[in-house]
């Protein structure tokens, strides 16, 4: 190996080491997709809908309190409002066209977990966990991106928090502020998510 090659290699190693030491915490773990912001077929803004117009998450993602999945709204449910609201917008016309052509809209999945993980939305929503805790401030996002890492660590840290689901004065479930010694509401059994 020539001296020149050795020089180049040593400079490279030094630079990489410096970057790792300086910004190590921001390096991603394997499989961490947070920040993923794919291009969607329709330029839909959560900021306008959930933020400015304060539409409840469950209006569109109506399966979230009943099912494993939160559910993506059907084209027809978009048109519930958009028959009246901005019916001529080029983005809405895409929805109209989808219905007319009988071709469902192919949204790109933003939040995903591996196939060996089962996540149930309904249990979390019914336990009083805010959508924001995992999905971030969607109401401020013009274009939705992945907020959490959705790594096993992020799930388990909550499940290990030794907090109980209690009902508040209006009968809605809430996560208690204090830790409890009582039986955990959130299990850390592997089979709860992996089966």
């Amino acid at each position, binding site marked *: 190996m020539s001296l020149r090659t050795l020089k180049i290699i040593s400079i490279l190693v030094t630079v990489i080491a410096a970057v790792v030491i300086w910004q190590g915490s921001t390096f991603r773990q394997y499989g961490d*997709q947070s920040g*993923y912001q*794919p291009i969607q077929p329709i330029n839909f803004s959560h900021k306008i809908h959930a933020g400015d117009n304060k539409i409840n998450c469950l209006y569109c993602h*109506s*399966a979230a*309190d*009943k*099912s*494993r*999945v939160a*559910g*993506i*709204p*059907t*084209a*027809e*449910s978009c048109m519930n409002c958009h028959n009246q609201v901005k019916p001529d917008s080029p983005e809405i016309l895409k929805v109209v066209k*989808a*219905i007319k052509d*009988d*071709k*469902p*809209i*192919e*949204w*790109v*999945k933003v939040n*995903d977990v*591996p*196939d*060996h993980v*089962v996540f*149930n939305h*309904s*249990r979390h929503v*019914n*336990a009083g966990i805010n959508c924001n805790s995992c999905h971030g401030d969607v109401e401020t996002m013009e274009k939705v991106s992945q907020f959490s890492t959705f790594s096993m660590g992020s799930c388990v840290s909550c499940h290990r928090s030794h907090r109980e689901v209690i009902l508040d004065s209006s009968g809605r479930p809430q996560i208690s502020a204090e830790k409890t010694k009582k*039986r955990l509401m959130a*299990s850390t*059994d*592997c*089979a*709860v998510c*992996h*089966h």
Partner: protein
Amino acid sequence: MNGSKLWKQFMEADENGYPVVAGSPIKGVSRRAFLAALGYTAAGMTLISCRVPEQKIIPNLKQPPEQTPGVSNWYASTCGGCSAGCGTLVKVRDGRPIKLEGNPIHPVSQGGLCSVAHSLVFGLYDSERLRNPLINGEQAKWQDIDRQIIGKLGSSTQSGGRIRFLSNTIISPTSRRVIDKFLSKFEGGRHIVYEPISTSAIRIAHSRSHGRNVTPAFHFDKARLVVSFDADFLGTWISPVQFTRDYTKLRDLRNGQQEMSRHIQFESRMSLTGANADKRFKISSAEQAGALLLLLNILSKKGDQSEMANSTALQSPDLSPQMAKQIEECAGELLRRKGESLVVCGSNDPDTQQIINAVNQTLSNYGSTIDIDSPSRQDGANDKDFAELVGEMNNGEVDALFMLGVNPAYDYHQSQAFAEGLKKVPLKVSFSSQMDETASLADIICPDHHSLESWNDAEAQTGTFSFHQPTIAPLFGTRAYQESLMRWTGDDRSYYDLLRSDWESTLFEKQTKYKKFDDFWDRSLHDGVYVEERTGQVGSAEFKTEGLSAAADRIRSKVNGGFSLELYQKPSIRDGKFASSPWLQELPDPISKTSWDNYACVSPQTAAKLNLAEGQIVKLGKETKTLELPVMIQPGQSDNSVAVALGYGRTKAGKAGTGVGANAFPLVEFADGSFRYQTTNLSITSTPDKVEFAKTQITDSAYERPLIEMYTLADYISGIHDNEHKDPEKLFDEHDYPEHKWGMAVDLSSCTGCNACVLSCQAENNIPVVGKDEIRSQRDLHWLRIDRYYKEEAGGIRTDFQPIPCMQCDNASCESVCPVLATVHSSEGLNMQVYNRCVGTRYCANNCPYKVRRFNWFEYPHDDPVANLALNPDVTVRSRGVMEKCTFCVQRIEEKKILARNENRPIKDGEIQTACQQSCPADAIVFGDLKDLKSRVSENKKSGRNYALLQDLNLKPAVTYLAKVKNDGGEKHGES
């Protein structure tokens, strides 16, 4: 450079004499530059591909109101497997059916299902199904089909309209009306019902003895003593799920009852039913006739029908004194149970069945355990009609033949004659959805929907109407055969409309409960079944003794010699219709524990006498017909008989079924108006060839280990079973179960070993099929298996069945050896297997004394997009190198736990049912929470019969067994 000549052929020397490659393939690019470019491209491609794989979510355009994404809906329907008409609940997830379960309120199946029913899901997503109608093998449009057929039918009316509609048993009254209406348009139209394995002799015998051409309803739930001659009513005979449920109801000791029904079986081969009998006698089919005659003779002499005995003057032919004594004892027992006994026979000889009818008549069983007034409709085949049809076809007397659900080119004993005759039929139309042996001979194929895609009704038992409702829109370009028939007679309605209007005009008119038809329809559809209100008793049919002595004479006059041959059905493959399902092919036979094959069963004594080894190929010969099959040495088989399973040797049954086993249908005989599955004068010649069976269990004996605990009924009542099982010393700390502790109790007294649970588990848990070779290497993947043990006893061979799921041990031996913590104990008592952690050391499997762990030796392909629709989305599809095992259906536990928590209530007992438990026709498996002391499983485990398998190992399994109890008929200790 001095190289050899050969070297010089490839290399040239440069100016310095060094060898260089003769001419670069790419001009102007050096080798070095090319490799560099290749390297950069590879690096670049790798970098580019380091991004999130794009996944699509495609929501509906319009949400069906009843559907929530990710939540399963259940629809009540009817199984379309065989003609038994069991009630099903179909689990539909996101618009696709993924699992069939039993409908508990259905009066026929009462919540049970058999293995064939579970395989229907596989059949629905079979990508080998026909996707379009075909004319002469060419893809066609429905309009062209209709035009052609209507045209040809029109021209056939000139020659008398000799139209034949050939079908299997159709239990749908509305479909029968559609067919009748279609045929009524033609002068010579006839409907012929054909079943390759028919029970037509029962109907012929009843028309002789009672003047009614019906199969009566057999009530095993009222029979305190069942005597069966070769009838495999728990495995394959008429309606096995219904009979199993009824039969086990009277043998269930878990509800505190102190008596159970008794079952005596006389049979030549070892059947599933015989294996469950309290007393089983080996009797060859040749001896059977004599035994029956003797039985009738004794009964009618001793009973109050002495006049019948005299008038028929039935003398019994020669029988071995031993068998005569046994028949005499059996007759004595039957007389003590008059009116609450049931004698059944699997023979398809009308004369034999007539004797059986007389036996049941002398025992006054008609009206109590046998109902001839509201008969079963589960088999309506007429063998004689079919034999005549083949004759007509060969004489060129048939203008058009429509074939539905039949495959005589494979399963008729003279299939060649059928095929020849078919050539002479000008118009041959098949409704088959598979390109099977018969469909490939048809001119026009109009594929019918799969039963999970179609509307229909079913009347399995007179007055019990159930529904088929579509659970998915047709996947392919198929059309309901009823609609096809309607189109050809100018009816443009859909079959659904017709079904509705038919129900309105027939059943709705007769009932009084509902004022509005819509309410009646919706309720019936919701329940999946409608039971007609009974309008008084029909007058009981008179028993006629005429012809009885003639029948007896005919039986007596039969000359027997050589080996007798017994052709039987396996509970999974049946008549071969479902041979294309790999699930059913791989499901081991409950008795021989062999999959992917049929064979010639011979007794160990015969094998020794003829010097045959297991797997040795023999030639079975009967007159001019021969059949080559491997030998299976089958304990319990009668010595001078050979048993061979039908339904194998298909030549056009898709990837899975083609060429599996050998076709034994040519050995079926036709005599006296019915097909015969028992013949005599069989010759056996051995050959030097040998094959290896694909067996899932290779030892037949439990070797005196206490794996199966058994008591006689007398001992059970006297409380002998109540010996405390002492717990061994505690070595480990007990687990803490804060909320639930799941457990299971399997009642070995109820379990018949039918295998329905194994297939239910396979369908639920996405278990792949491994194939014959892998089974031979003991690499089967079934999470649940049923062990079968033989035990030599004084009175013959005893057979025991034991379902073995993962035992979910408290002191699990698997957990302590896993180096990567891929199998750990849950807070609810489960041994969890974490696929994503498993590295495949297989230590756990080696350390499991129950051998319930399964290893994925290969990546089983999931590249068929249609077949993949059958996968359960709640269960991970495992990949290669991963250990797997029964999870107690943890996905079902989680689903119900979440539901209960969301509704803020505790889980109800019985709310969570494992897949095996749900479909068990015998209700042998009980699952539940052991922390709930009032749960059914806790109650079961309190029984003195409760014991753990391999208790001495102190593994504390959560699955325990309730010891088997046999009804010894009152004798204390030691069965004779």
